[in-house]
């Protein structure tokens, strides 16, 4: 049935079954993607999906359920399951169905220009990248991935307290992974970006970036395993920041799972570290004018001059701490329950570019990528020991590619040991960082 009718039926039945406050959140997504392999589109994918999540309050408890089917059976399923779920909940602090903020940002996160790019144009673009990839160096033997995908999402939040919010976003994602071979040595290099600015992508630059990276990894050598000064290149630093971002969530703090507990107002990072959460970041993948509870979002400093200024809150954690929500209520999708997460979260860039940092470090290691971040890190203790790829730096110059290594340390210590923040801010989805110079980390090289 039509979503408007479905919503009416759900609210009707919900009231009958005893829900006092109710909310329906829907996500409508359309996507189109294609992959190129040796001049041919070898995979093409399109989708149109609708997902509905229901939240309802009964006797002070919140029940959740979701569905991707909008038939009459699903009306019954959604409301009845939510009721059973609400009866099970034993948590003390209750969620609220929000009446609305006084004012919302009116930023636009939809690019009409992107919408106008035809599928033929996208395929031509991929073909151009492929041509450039093979033309760049004869050691290129193939590609793992050469894909473009675009998607458009419409979010709608409606509740029984009169709040009705809508948001529409789109973006395009490009992913390129090339393979180079020299003798028996095989390496790959990647380029990936998610953006709303299609024309910021240039075939030649993309190809050059991926191939150069793959080539630079050839002739990898070993080096002594010991403590080194380490430069984390922008995307690697962003990936590490993403992995440890839960430490800033009030939810984690309240569960006693973050060592930042009780440290508001204190110096938790080196002086020149400045981290912001910016829901209005123009090209951000998590940009939006309202959060998953319907609160107005806002930009905020999380760490400034090394001092921890705020945790990230939704209304539930805010109530516990007796503060205002920071507009960071988050649902991974309509399938999730309300939690806390950053919007676009990044370290503000400073002056020096990567070559400056390399010159400054003298002898050390440049880490360009991490692998296995989901398993080699402990966000509770801050400890990490992660596989990494990168280069040896000697006398202020990048010397040679290194065999696979592990980089071990503690994230809380690392924040204090950031000696220099670079100028080259780059995002890995919603998380961004410039390159960072870290005083010392334990490195083991194969």
């Amino acid at each position, binding site marked *: 049935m039509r979503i408007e009718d479905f919503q009416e039926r759900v609210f009707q039945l919900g009231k009958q079954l005893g829900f006092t406050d109710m909310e329906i959140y829907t996500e409508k997504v359309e996507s189109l993607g294609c992959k190129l392999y040796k001049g041919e589109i070898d995979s093409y994918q399109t989708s149109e999906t609708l997902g509905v999540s229901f939240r309802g309050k009964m006797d002070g408890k919140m029940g959740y359920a979701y569905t991707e089917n909008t038939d009459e059976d699903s009306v019954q399923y959604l409301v009845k399951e939510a009721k059973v779920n609400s009866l099970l909940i034993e948590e003390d602090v209750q969620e609220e169905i929000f009446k609305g903020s006084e004012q919302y940002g009116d930023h636009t996160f939809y690019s009409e220009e992107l919408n106008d790019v035809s599928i033929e144009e996208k395929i031509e673009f991929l073909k151009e990248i492929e041509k450039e990839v093979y033309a760049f160096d004869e050691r290129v033997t193939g590609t793992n991935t050469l894909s473009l995908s675009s998607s458009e999402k419409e979010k709608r939040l409606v509740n029984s307290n009169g709040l009705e919010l809508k948001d529409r976003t789109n973006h395009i994602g490009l992913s390129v992974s090339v393979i180079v071979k020299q003798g028996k040595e*095989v390496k790959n290099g990647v380029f990936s970006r998610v953006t709303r600015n299609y024309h910021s992508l240039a075939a030649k630059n993309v190809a050059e970036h991926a191939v150069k990276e793959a080539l630079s990894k050839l002739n990898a050598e070993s080096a002594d395993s010991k403590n080194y000064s380490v430069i984390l290149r922008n995307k690697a630093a962003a990936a590490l920041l993403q992995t440890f971002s839960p430490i800033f969530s009030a939810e984690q703090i309240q569960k006693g799972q973050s060592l930042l507990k009780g440290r508001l107002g204190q110096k938790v990072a080196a002086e020149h570290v400045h981290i912001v959460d910016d829901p209005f970041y123009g090209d951000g993948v998590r940009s939006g004018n309202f959060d998953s509870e319907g609160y107005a979002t806002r930009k905020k400093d999380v760490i400034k001059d090394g001092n921890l200024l705020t945790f990230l809150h939704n209304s539930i954690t805010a109530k516990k701490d007796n503060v205002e929500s920071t507009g960071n209520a988050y649902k991974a999708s309509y399938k999730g329950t309300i939690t806390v997460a950053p919007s676009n979260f990044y370290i503000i860039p400073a002056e020096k570019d990567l070559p400056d940092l390399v010159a400054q470090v003298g002898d050390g290691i440049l880490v360009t990528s991490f692998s296995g971040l989901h398993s080699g890190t402990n966000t509770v203790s801050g400890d990490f020991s992660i596989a990494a790829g990168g280069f040896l730096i000697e006398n202020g110059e990048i010397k040679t590619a290194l065999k696979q290594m592990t980089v071990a340390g503690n994230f809380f210590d690392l924040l204090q040991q950031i000696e220099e923040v670079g100028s080259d801010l780059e995002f890995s989805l919603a998380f961004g960082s410039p390159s960072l110079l870290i005083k010392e980390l334990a490195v083991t090289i194969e």
Partner: protein
Amino acid sequence: MLAKSVIEDVLTAALQTGGDFAEVFAEDRFANTLLLRENKVEGSLSGRDFGIGIRVFKGFQSAYAYTTDGSKEGLLKAAYQAAAGIKGERNVTASPLVQEKIVSAHSIAAFPREVEKQRKADVMRKAYEIAKNYHSSIQQVGIRYLDEEQHVLIANSEGKFVEDKRVRSRLSIQSIASDGNQMQSGYYGPGAHQGFEFMESLDLNHYASEASRIAVTMLGADPCPSGKFPVIIDNEFGGVIFHEACGHGLEATSVAKGNSVFADQIGEKVASDVVTYIDDGTLANEWGSLAIDDEGEAARKNVLIENGILKGYLIDKLNGRRMGMPSTGSGRRQSYRFAPTSRMTNTYIANGKSTPAEIIANTEHGIYAKYMGGGQVNTTTGDYNFAVMEAYAVKDGKIGKPLRGATLIGNGPETLKLVDMVGNNLAHGAGMCGSLSGSLPVNVGQPMIRVSEMTVGGRKGEE
């Protein structure tokens, strides 16, 4: 779920632009997740996933469209969208659908949807009590309960029409221990292709105590040294090393285009003689088991490596075309939102001849990895890494002090050749595996094994 006549129309529509094969995958899944912390049910979520994926092939080309609109109009629209990805004139007609009956080796006694949620919460409370009371240093325990009933329908233009219902249950226990200065965690997450009977017969004492024991043990552990050592990896979830080191590299996804280090190696010696590696989706009621894969092919036992010789790959239909090899019943996907590709089911190293005691006694100086965390592999280069949840130093043939923060890195093909002892205590452990076609339940398994040399990374530095 969908009428046969509608599916026939959809397949016909999907073939209109010259496709030579079309397939419909429909899914209706009911899932429940419950979360208990500090002995209180903190979350309970139910959901119904529903959607249809339509796939068209033309030679090596494939097009895929998916939708949550199950009406005939919605399906035809998706079929046209998939067809738009293929260029040509109609030249294949869909065969009439013939219903296939499957006999599942995975019988289900108690379907989760028929079990009251309070009973599920009771299991969680029991596990909580055991884990929390294990030791005074246990600060927090989180229990996650998950069950799902996934009804799938797979039909294709070759006349296949088959349905299956997959039921899975899993209980995860995470314990956090603290001594005031530091926190360490332990985890155990048993799961099965079974209904609520799995929860009722689960040895909660064992799993909940182990999760807490690991956390408590790690509190007293030294930072792991780094360097190159012989590494002993225990059975069950220890098998994650081969999942990363060679399982992914044997999937047609990376083999078909020649990008895997194992491409064109059939019949070649790729591992030491003591290594036999098997993927078996037919193991009764195991977490990674299936009656049919997501392309409607019967699950089977595939011997991948036998006594060190590469015997076969894991193959799905599309990659099979490029390789000129038939499907091995390995086409899997997380949901209708993903086109299927070759994936593992229950993958394990077969039993060898050594006893675990012999393996340890034969190791002069090394690392014993009792429980593994997760890992990752680059299938192009074969480089892998994974974390060790519970590790110990081994000295003079004896297990010594516990070590924390150990990460193992290496290269899959090289590691396979360095396996020098294989134990006789094969067991399987449940995990989730992420790849092109989404996140899937898989088992990893092995007996205790020893690798003569691995690179171990830790915070302590070289010894």
